[in-house]
């Protein structure tokens, strides 16, 4: 059973890869706009965003579904990855900005005399790429170290992560924090020497996101199948037993926390050139909550669940915010409540849930028809042995 499951999974990954890396870009590039199968540049761009969210959702689930750590601040790491790469894109604009200065527009506007020193190395693509990984990773390391060493668990951990992202959000809103304040970083022109807004570049970014998603999926599948994966679930299900089996639980949690922050950061870095802007609202607390809803809706504790959830909820959002702009938050909340109450395993768990329900009712009906057999199974014990067994009065 195990092997056949893995086979279908391999097929799934293969088919997903063909669609994301082959069919969709080809339909976008090679079909005329009049063709019914044509995919517009706008749509490809939108799908690219969904894929970024899917990667983010996997990172949430690696923490929540697999390790029992409900982080309500995962978008902070997503946004930090985005900012790190956005800084590089900002510096590539060169003199083409509104003010025709070497400085990014917002710096001219705010009267900066020169590029702040911590911006300088971001001229290098590789430095920025390293920062995409290291900045979220390092922050997660420091925060996680302090939180897990002090045994902050459960809802306290969730609240703390939410507070962390809120605090960071407020900092980034400030103009003197040197990251563009309210407006953030935007008006990007180039990426790796190409026009960032051209259809071909956007198509490549879409495919790059597809590659990131597949790599993330495969990596997490591998990790969760090692002994480490068993340990993640052990921490989730019985941290007590785990601690008293000689494991330093804090180290294991810290590792997952850092890994998932890095994954989120990578997703954020690819998100920014596709949406063309990164600002502090990306690390607002409600963004992280939304990511948790995607995972819940898709099905936590699986890897396909977050992907399905992120894409489905965001597709719904794209439609609903146009059809009923005022109702989106209510729809989102209602969805969460329904999933929590009726679909504990989300969309991907629905078939199994229905099957179990079907089996249960079958068993129930069968039992009902053979009721009289039950009495014979009652245990019989000699009364005097019971008496000698306990000198204890309360039992």
């Amino acid at each position, binding site marked *: 059973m195990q092997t056949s499951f893995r086979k279908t999974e391999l097929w799934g990954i293969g088919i997903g890869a063909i669609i994301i890396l082959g069919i969709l870009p080809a339909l976008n590039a090679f079909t005329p706009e009049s063709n019914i199968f044509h995919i517009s540049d706008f749509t490809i761009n939108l799908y690219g965003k969904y894929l970024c969210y899917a990667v983010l959702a996997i990172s949430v689930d690696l923490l929540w579904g697999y390790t029992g750590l409900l982080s309500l601040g995962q978008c902070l790491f997503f946004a930090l990855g985005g900012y790190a790469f956005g800084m590089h894109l900002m510096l590539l604009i060169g003199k083409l900005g509104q003010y025709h200065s070497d400085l990014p527009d917002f710096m001219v506007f705010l009267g900066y005399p020169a590029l702040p020193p911590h911006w300088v190395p971001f001229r290098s693509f590789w430095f920025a790429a390293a920062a995409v990984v290291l900045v979220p990773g390092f922050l997660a390391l420091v925060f996680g170290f302090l939180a897990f060493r002090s045994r902050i668990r459960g809802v306290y951990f969730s609240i703390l992560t939410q507070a962390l992202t809120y605090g960071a959000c407020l900092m980034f809103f400030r103009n003197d924090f040197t990251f563009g304040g309210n407006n953030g970083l935007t008006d990007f022109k180039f990426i790796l020497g190409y026009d960032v807004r051209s259809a071909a570049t956007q198509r490549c970014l879409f495919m790059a996101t597809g590659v990131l998603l597949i790599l993330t999926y495969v990596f997490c599948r591998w990790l969760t199948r090692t002994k480490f994966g068993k340990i993640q679930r052990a921490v989730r*299900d*019985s941290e007590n037993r785990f601690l008293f*089996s*000689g*494991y330093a639980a804090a180290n294991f949690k810290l590792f997952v926390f850092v890994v998932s922050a890095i994954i989120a950061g990578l997703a954020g870095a690819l998100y920014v050139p596709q949406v063309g802007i990164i600002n502090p609202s990306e690390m607002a607390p409600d963004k992280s909550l939304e990511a948790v809803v995607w995972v819940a809706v898709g099905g936590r504790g699986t890897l396909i669940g977050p992907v399905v959830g992120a894409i489905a909820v965001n597709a719904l959002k794209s439609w609903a915010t146009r059809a009923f702009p005022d109702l989106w938050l209510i729809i989102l909340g209602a969805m969460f409540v329904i999933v929590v109450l009726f679909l504990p395993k989300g969309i991907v768990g629905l078939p199994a849930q229905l099957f179990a329900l079907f089996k249960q009712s079958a068993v129930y009906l069968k039992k009902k028809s053979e009721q009289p057999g039950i009495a014979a199974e009652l245990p019989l014990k000699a009364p005097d042995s019971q008496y000698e067994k306990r*000198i204890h*009065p309360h039992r």
Partner: protein
Amino acid sequence: MRKEFILTAEGVSKSFDGFKAINDLNFYLDAGELRTIIGPNGAGKSTFLDLITGRTRPDDGQIEFKGTPVTKKTEYQIYRMGIGRKFQTPSVYSDHTVYENILLGLKGSRSVWSAIFGRVTPAQNEQIYHVLEIIHLKDKAQVRAGALAHGQKQWLEIGMLIAQDPELMLVDEPAAGMTDEETARTGELLLSLAGKHTIIVIEHDMVFVRQLASKVTVLHQGHVLCEGSLDHVQNDERVIEVYLGRKKKHDAIHPEH
């Protein structure tokens, strides 16, 4: 003189919100000994194990394992000194298979690195099946632990303890919820382990305690009331008073019992 003991507790006290769960407890255990602790509900038996294993810290007093104080150490440091524990309510990983439960309990490296890149060696695999055989769960190796019967969960947790192979085993109510036959088998199992490990067993079941035939410590209100053979403590005035006296009072308050 003190060096002979594997575990010593001296003047240990622990209060929860003013309630003295452990009160000036003194306890000495010889290396290789099998000891049974009995006492009424709330006597502080489990709390004593919590104090030894680092789950709670004493307000007062000293606990030493082989001459090293344990009271400032973390759970995993104490584990690595060679102390293993089975909880009162069976604590197994219910979503994992029986095999995986033993694997996670197996003695060996506890680092993140080895968890990711380590492989189960044939020797470890053999060890796991050896343990499964001892606890009569070999044919259930691939079953989810959550699907086991209560008694089997107890055995599984004892199995994790055997896999850990600690010098000192702390076993909290291993026979709770077991049938008489299962209880007897658990007793045999513990007796077979007694040669190789130092063991503390907490139990309420007097048939079981008699089967272990070990020195018995009676705990009452967080204090050692009396120690000796089972026959000795059963005939001790104070012990009878604690068990029977409270029964009378209890019956007076709840005549329907």
